[in-house]
């Protein structure tokens, strides 16, 4: 084992630091550029749309609206994608109905981006507006459990247990809307070939999703369209579903029979999915000694009027601690907006925010240290599913975090600035460790270089690097002998890159195909060396690109010279491990934070953030740590910065830009630390690895909220927590 577990620098690093990593909008071809005009009302219909001036503008090639959408895109057309929630997916230009503010209502295609953008402003639109309710709060009356999936089963008798509890709390927590905003705006570049076939470069977390959508909408056969995505400039869930630029660029390319590129503006990055605003009602009870006796978690979330977006939010409250009397409810209410979309740790981050705030409040009521309270209610099996965990080293996370943070002596730390209040808070975090079916193909060339292909993605997570590490180790070759290729529908199927399951799913497939290929090498070696006919596979090893048997070594390249051409390539599909059925797989973490709150000015800062995680085998601690730190900072952003400001009068996002939608900047980050505890897991998947992309954000906002209470005595119970929320009046 040379690479797995090592802090390997990224194999795609040289491309990234030289500007040679080609993201979707970087594809070089003579493109027409497409720009979308969006509605300025949230509800009603278009009564007139005049494109005359825009059509006459220099460079404009075509304008598409509901008035000239080809009929074939209207009837018996499947607009769904693999992750479409129940309901009717949005159909661009289908008719004159306006379903949300910012809806695409016209597409201008021109020779340059600037021409297309300006021409779009020359289009005159007349609307008939209808009344609507633009916020979750205004639509609460319409909340219904019928539109939401059923949560985990209730257990015990919550009402009775709550009544009999020594300490109880009933609390409401609110989260505002958050937008993904990867640095790379969503983009699609369509190359139109002379034979009428298209190659579509799309910003997506899995090219198969784009392909499915294109087939359904445009009726394209598998041989007439290929989707590629070599580099993805972050996504965080925004690329889990094809976004409207895919439709637009493809529509224009097919109609104009020309290469077309559409890149969203930053403002347009606020015109599709988002983490929905939710309201949680928590009722918790415990006994005098801190035993959690009753727990009820009800969440109401927003969705669109046309799709029922749902997340697993309340189930987390039945999972994290031992509790025999649990009541879980989940409701959705439609608002005049686009459909929400899974965003980094969807559901978990929301559910655990409310739970971990409530747990802290209950521990405080019972007069028990919040860490001790959590230890007291530790659970080592999944009560929702009634299954054991594949592994759970959360206790070790608690212990290590306590030590690194110096939790027990936290109060003795001196305050340096008389204006500042100091506070400490903690939370537990968890995320699923799932494995999905994944397929890979491997081939070896005469130079001994292995090419492994899979339709998966690298959204910044390190897929290229980690898969190369796994393959290098399994094959016994150096890292530079591995070429891992991804992001192409011509490659074997992969699950979409999401859910923190890529290492688990694709990594296990890579490991398996490499092991398969070892047998292939072994077979060819034996076939051409009759003297070793009796040698068992167990008696040989693979190192330094050589097969080793006793003191003898045989270079792969020499052995495989004797192989047939067919023998140099191999394919493999890996099914999820049995443990995925019999056990529940989760990664866990403990997070502790220090905050300062300016007594008079309300300014909240986070001087210290510590996370200790248990996530099975860590393939590359360098990239894993980086991802975890990033997701912790997302937690900070969610807690203290990010708020999609929807003006409910207009149903319009008013801060659709990076100047007023505040994501964390470098200066926001002070002392931040993460580390992993040892966690052996032989059930979750063959690698024993759990994903870490989402874990760090879960619980973090609660820890900050709890720390603010510790500092100020105030429970803010809302996100984001801004300085005006803590100002003493």
């Amino acid at each position, binding site marked *: 084992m040379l690479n797995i577990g090592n802090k390997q620098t990224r194999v*795609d690093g040289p491309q990234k630091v030289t*500007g040679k990593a080609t993201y979707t909008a970087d594809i070089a071809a003579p493109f027409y550029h497409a720009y979308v005009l969006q509605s300025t009302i949230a509800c009603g219909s278009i009564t007139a749309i005049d494109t005359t001036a825009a059509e006459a503008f220099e460079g404009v090639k075509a304008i598409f609206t509901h008035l000239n959408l080809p009929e074939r895109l209207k009837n018996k057309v499947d607009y769904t994608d693999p992750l479409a929630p129940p309901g009717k997916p949005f159909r661009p230009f289908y008719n004159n109905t306006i379903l949300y503010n910012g809806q695409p209502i016209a597409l201008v295609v021109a020779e*340059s981006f600037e021409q297309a953008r300006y021409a779009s402003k020359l289009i005159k639109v007349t609307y008939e507006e209808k009344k609507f309710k633009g916020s979750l709060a205004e639509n609460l009356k319409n909340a219904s459990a019928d539109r939401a999936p059923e949560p985990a089963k209730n257990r015990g008798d919550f009402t009775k247990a709550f009544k009999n509890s020594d300490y109880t709390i009933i609390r409401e927590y609110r989260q505002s809307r958050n937008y993904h905003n990867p640095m790379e705006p969503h983009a699609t570049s369509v190359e139109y070939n002379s034979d009428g076939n298209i190659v579509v470069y799309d910003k997506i977390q899995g090219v198969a999703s784009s392909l499915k959508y294109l087939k359904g909408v445009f009726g394209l056969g598998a041989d007439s369209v290929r989707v590629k995505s070599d580099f993805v400039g972050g996504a965080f869930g925004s690329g889990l579903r094809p976004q409207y630029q895919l439709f637009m660029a493809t529509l224009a390319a097919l109609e104009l029979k020309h290469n077309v590129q559409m890149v969203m503006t930053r403002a347009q990055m606020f015109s599709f999915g988002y983490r929905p605003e939710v309201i949680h009602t928590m009722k918790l009870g415990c006994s005098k000694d801190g035993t959690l006796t009753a727990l009820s978690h009800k969440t109401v979330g927003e969705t669109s009027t046309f799709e029922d977006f749902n997340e697993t939010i309340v189930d987390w409250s039945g999972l994290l601690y031992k509790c025999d009397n649990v009541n879980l409810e989940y409701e959705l209410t439609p608002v005049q907006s686009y459909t929400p979309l899974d965003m980094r740790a969807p559901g978990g981050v929301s559910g655990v925010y409310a739970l971990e705030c409530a747990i802290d409040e209950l521990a405080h009521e019972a007069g028990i240290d919040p860490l001790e309270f959590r230890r007291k209610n530790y659970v080592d099996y999944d009560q929702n599913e009634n299954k054991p965990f594949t592994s759970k080293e959360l206790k070790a996370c608690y212990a290590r975090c306590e030590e690194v943070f110096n939790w027990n002596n936290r109060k003795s730390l001196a305050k340096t600035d008389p204006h500042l209040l100091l506070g400490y808070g903690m939370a537990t975090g968890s995320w699923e460790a799932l494995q999905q079916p994944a397929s890979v193909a491997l081939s070896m060339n005469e130079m001994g270089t292995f090419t492994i292909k899979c339709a998966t993605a690298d959204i910044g997570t390190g897929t290229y690097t980690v898969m190369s590490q796994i393959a290098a180790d399994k094959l016994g070759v150096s890292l530079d002998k591995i070429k891992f290729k991804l992001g192409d529908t011509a490659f074997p199927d992969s699950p979409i890159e999401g859910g923190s399951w890529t290492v688990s799913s694709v990594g296990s497939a890579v490991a398996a195909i490499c092991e398969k290929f070892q047998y292939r090498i072994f077979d060819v070696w034996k076939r051409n060396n009759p003297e070793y006919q009796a040698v068992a596979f167990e008696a040989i090893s693979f190192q330094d690109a050589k097969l080793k048997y006793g003191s003898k070594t045989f270079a792969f390249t020499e052995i495989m010279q004797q192989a047939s051409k067919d023998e140099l390539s191999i394919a493999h599909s890996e099914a999820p491990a049995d443990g995925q059925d019999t056990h529940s797989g989760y990664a866990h973490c403990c997070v502790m934070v220090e905050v300062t709150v300016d007594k008079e000015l309300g300014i909240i800062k986070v001087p210290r953030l510590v996370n200790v995680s248990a996530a099975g085998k860590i393939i590359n601690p360098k990239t894993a740590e980086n991802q975890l730190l990033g997701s912790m900072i997302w937690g900070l952003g969610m807690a203290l910065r990010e708020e999609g400001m929807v003006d409910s009068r207009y149903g319009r996002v008013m801060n659709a*830009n990076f100047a007023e939608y505040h994501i964390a900047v470098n200066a926001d980050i002070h002392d931040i630390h993460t580390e992993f505890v040892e966690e052996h897991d032989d059930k979750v998947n063959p690698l024993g690895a759990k994903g870490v992309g989402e874990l760090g954000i879960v619980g973090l906002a609660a820890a900050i909220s709890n720390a603010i209470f510790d500092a100020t005595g105030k429970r803010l119970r809302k996100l984001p927590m801004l300085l005006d929320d803590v100002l003493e009046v």
Partner: protein
Amino acid sequence: MNTNPVHFTLNGKPVKISIEPWTTLLDYLRYHKKLVGTKKGCDHGQCGACTVLVDGNSVNSCLCLLVSLDGKDITTIEGIGTADNLSVEQQIFIEEDAYQCGFCTPGQICSTIAMRNRGEINSEEELKDWMSGNLCRCAAYKNLTKAARRIYKES
């Protein structure tokens, strides 16, 4: 066509062209020169992905009209180093894993170089503040800070 002349140096080479005045430096680099290492992250000076060096200073190329850069010396990520001949800064970014998705990376690297050129950093706070003009949604800030610190001190 409505164009205006402009002369400048791009990655060491003199350029003399006449161009539509609304062409930003960023669009010129990406659409006209296919120098796509410089990224469009917001197009409004709010993210730093388009950062390049003009006379050694970091600027948002999305907010500069090319015609207004007459006589200037422009350096993009492509002029800093190549995969076969990485600059010190690029090497440090790789070593420190000062990125994840890589989209903001060219701009971040330009900012570290401009920071060193300016030479006005006296504290960790000032360093972080300087680097705050480059958003990183992956939030690789800890490693970015490490890399920026090394570049400021070592090179």
